[in-house]
């Protein structure tokens, strides 16, 4: 129970004024701009866009600055902002095959058609602190340039599917459910699950994905393919009857390839776990793909004992804005609640003491 309390306004005002000073930090240091955050802390911006479920680099960068780098707070700010905007409609589904690739790797085929492109990656770095970065100044030397290869880059999953070794995705064109319009109910179908996972907390999904690898609902996964790059978004406006190109966004896609023993109706084959996120978010896309596959285990007859296989558990807890709201509400005044608890405990204690006294 909550009661309205008064008297905190002055303290709140002072707290927020101090917050602004703390956010700014030492005034002897130059102020960081949202544009600098956008350019130089790009992966923080990408994470906020993914978990804030709103692709806008400038807004996400502003949110990172405003939240002092607290990325969950930043996602919360972005989610709050999006509620102030009208929805014009939905895009045509992205064709990730047509992505302009900055990165594309496969752990299943060394010589896959179109090749493996590392892109700007932390992989194979030594994870040694680079003290040259502590001294600002020099621009990095130009990255080497190569001759672009125009060979097509078919999906690894498609190569397997052509040989009958990969389960095909259902050819459905149904209007997908939207959990921002209709609260989640269970069981949730795969499109809804993917929406929830795409905006889910990277840390939570990472841990759940990790749990499947360690044997909690395990299903030995391979990275069939990870691709990252720019993709055009097409949208059919209500006043026009053709699709218009809105521009490009960056997305990361992960196709996990998992063995499937087969069932009475289907022969043994591979199945996919799928991850797709805004921005360059490889860890998130991989985690999402692992959890997507784990959540498919009931439909594939693999049981649902492990936490990652339980959709109500996963989907109800993967949203960090919801989770933070409920956890952090505990610090709001619960004075009346607690008074009744206090009375309860006192009564119980008195009864026990009396019993012991006798």
């Amino acid at each position, binding site marked *: 129970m909550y009661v309205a309390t008064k008297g905190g306004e002055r303290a709140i005002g002072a707290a927020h004024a101090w917050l602004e000073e703390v956010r700014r930090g030492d005034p002897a240091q130059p102020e960081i701009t949202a544009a600098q955050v956008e350019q130089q802390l790009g992966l923080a911006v990408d994470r906020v866009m*993914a978990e804030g*479920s*709103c*692709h*806008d680099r*400038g807004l996400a960068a502003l949110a990172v600055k405003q939240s002092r780098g607290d990325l969950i707070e930043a996602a919360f700010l972005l989610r709050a902002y999006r509620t102030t905007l*009208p*929805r*014009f*409609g*939905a*895009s045509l*589904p*992205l064709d*990730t095959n047509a992505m*302009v690739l*900055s990165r594309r790797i496969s752990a299943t*085929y*060394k*010589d896959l058609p179109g*090749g*493996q492109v*590392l892109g700007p990656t932390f992989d194979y770095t030594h994870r040694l602190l680079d003290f040259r970065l502590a001294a600002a100044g020099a621009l990095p030397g130009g*990255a*080497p*340039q*190569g*001759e*672009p*290869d125009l060979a097509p880059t078919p999906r690894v*999953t498609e190569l397997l599917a052509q040989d009958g070794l990969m389960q095909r*995705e259902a050819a*459905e*064109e*149904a*209007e*997908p459910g*939207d*959990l*921002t319009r209709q609260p989640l109910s269970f069981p949730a179908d*795969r*499109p809804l699950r*993917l*929406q929830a996972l*795409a*905006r889910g907390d990277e840390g939570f999904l990472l841990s759940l994905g990790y749990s499947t690898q360690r044997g909690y609902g395990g299903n030995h996964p391979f990275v069939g393919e990870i691709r990252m790059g*720019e993709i055009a*978004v097409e949208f059919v406006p209500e*006043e*026009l009857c053709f699709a*218009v190109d*809105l*521009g*490009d*966004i960056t997305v990361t896609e992960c*196709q996990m390839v998992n063995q499937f023993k087969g069932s009475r109706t289907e022969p043994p084959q591979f199945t996919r776990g*799928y991850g*797709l*996120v*805004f921005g360059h978010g490889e860890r998130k896309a991989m985690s999402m793909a692992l959890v997507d596959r784990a959540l498919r285990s009931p439909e594939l007859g693999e049981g649902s004992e492990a936490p990652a296989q339980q959709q109500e558990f996963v989907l109800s807890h993967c949203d960090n804005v919801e989770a933070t709201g409920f956890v952090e509400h505990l610090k709001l005044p619960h004075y009346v609640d607690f008074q009744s608890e206090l009375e309860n405990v006192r009564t119980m204690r008195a009864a026990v003491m009396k019993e012991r006294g006798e």
Partner: protein
Amino acid sequence: MSVLARAAAEDIVRHLADLPPLPAHRRLRGPETGLVMVRGRAGGDGAPFNLGEMTVTRCSVRMEDGTIGHAHAAGRDQAQAEIAAVLDALMQQDAWRPRLEALVIAPLEAAQAERRAATARRAAATKVEFFTMTQMR
């Protein structure tokens, strides 16, 4: 329009410098910023799902002669959406179309193509050349 959707307002305006002043227009709608729900497909090629929203700015204008232009562009640049809507209307007029294509669209398109090519060249440099070349399938 896909070129204008990727061009900043100031870049569009800069390319208009060598053209006569644009005729007057009236705003029919916007410019206004809203959201488009971006959809993906399960497994890349399966059932559509809602990935998340993106900001989009749209504008519709009517020129003095009655031609209507529309523009939709990712982001929140309202000046971009308005000028793009005006150019969309003018591109429907024979008097404007060739000049706009030559002086505005073509150079912007070339700059965008060069930006994409620069990314492709950097990506190409990070392509892995394995030593063994056996086909694994």
